[in-house]
């Protein structure tokens, strides 16, 4: 009985977190069942603090009694542990390329889009510009491809996956226009392909709930700035 509990995967997450979501998609693509624990990030549980004392963040995965944190670390761990249906390409150069772009999108697009939607004026303009430049790079990478991974979803699609459903919501509530479909046709196609995959389509945060969440967050941030 104890051994069964240990081999089962437990995932601590947050419904709106893109970092958690990409790990869930990976587990689902691999057909790995897991117990999901929704964390209250504002009132962090003793379990979360015990399992990830350094960062106190989700996702946290427990497998075979061992704790693994950080979403990109988890994607690689999942790919190495459950070897069927590979997420990363086989060729070392292609792997390096996928890892490079995953890091790039995280550092340039996610970071700057986040800043852009929660700021105003010059700060917003600057971040907005960098975010668009990042999408230009994505557009180049996607030209002629159904997915980053080729014919099917791979590591880089999962890493960038938040762009498909979260960035449009951010653009709407954040008064930004980062994902312009006229400007980025390949990216727009990719979004359709990605969201059309059954395992992705059935595993997305609800749109209106997302909108409310980010809209409220934006209001809180703007209000606290006004009172400074």
């Amino acid at each position, binding site marked *: 009985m104890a051994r069964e509990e240990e081999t089962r995967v437990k995932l601590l997450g947050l419904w709106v977190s893109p970092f958690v979501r990409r790990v869930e998609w990976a587990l689902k693509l691999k057909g790995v069942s897991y117990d999901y624990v929704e964390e209250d990030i504002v009132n962090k549980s003793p379990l979360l603090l015990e399992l990830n004392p350094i960062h106190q963040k989700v996702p946290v995965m427990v*497998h075979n009694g*061992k704790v*693994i944190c950080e979403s990109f*670390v988890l994607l*690689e761990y999942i790919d190495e*542990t459950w070897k069927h249906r590979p997420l990363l390409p086989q060729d070392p*150069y292609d792997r390096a390329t996928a890892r490079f772009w995953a890091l790039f999108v995280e550092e340039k697009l996610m970071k700057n889009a986040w800043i852009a939607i929660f700021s105003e004026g010059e700060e917003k303009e600057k971040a907005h510009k960098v975010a668009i430049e990042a999408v230009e790079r994505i557009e180049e990478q996607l030209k002629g491809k159904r997915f980053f991974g080729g014919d099917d979803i791979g590591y880089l699609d999962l890493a960038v996956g938040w762009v498909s459903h979260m960035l449009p919501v951010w653009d709407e509530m954040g008064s930004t226009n980062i994902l312009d479909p006229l400007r980025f046709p390949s990216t727009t196609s990719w979004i359709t392909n990605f969201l059309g995959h059954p395992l992705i389509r059935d595993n997305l945060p609800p749109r209106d709930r997302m909108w409310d969440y980010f809209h409220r967050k934006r209001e809180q941030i703007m209000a606290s700035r006004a009172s400074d």
Partner: protein
Amino acid sequence: MAGDAVKLLGAWPSPVVMRARIALNLKSVGYEFVEENLGNKSQLLLQSNPVHKKIPVLIHGDKPVCESLIIVQYIDEVWSSGPGILPSDPYDLATARFWAAYIDDKWFPSLTGIAKAQDDGAKKAAIEQVSEGLALLEDAFRKCSKGKTFFGGDRVGYLDIAFGCFLGWLRVTEKMNGVELISRSKTPQLAQWAERFCADPAVKDVMPETDKLAEFAKVLFAKFKNPPSQ
């Protein structure tokens, strides 16, 4: 593919460039080292890494690979018959990757925070932060090494490379601020590990001498204190 020519674009003071050099040395891979002048970047660098325009860049045959830890993984995967750099067990590998990310995202920025501190109070706080990080890394060493010589076990591995590359700058910081960050009293395991790491054949010729690096640092830090006017 493994037989194609290897070129590494870098600069001698750069710790992240050192990561790639150590990995190539561990695999006994011959390569041409191209010293870049960061104030006047070469066409080759700008073409090979158009996105970031940063070093290191590994050019294998005609293919550029960028980002130091991605380069180390690439080297391990291509020259797979040489001694393994990444841990073979997925959990040990996940642990090594976790700590490498911590070092890049949190610990090394805290180290440069000491140089950037504008007054004594800020400096003291920055030093404290670095020390707290080292206490975590001391603990990580105990867990990862499992009683052996390196984070990677019997030989230099991924996490040794990811962390050890910063030892030169750490020593310069200690010297310039009159503090001990890694010491036998505070971080006994790391102190021993640091000596062994720097003495390793794959490391010793690419780790810059502390005095030479300190001279370079003085020039660099002068720029932080008196940034050129916009």
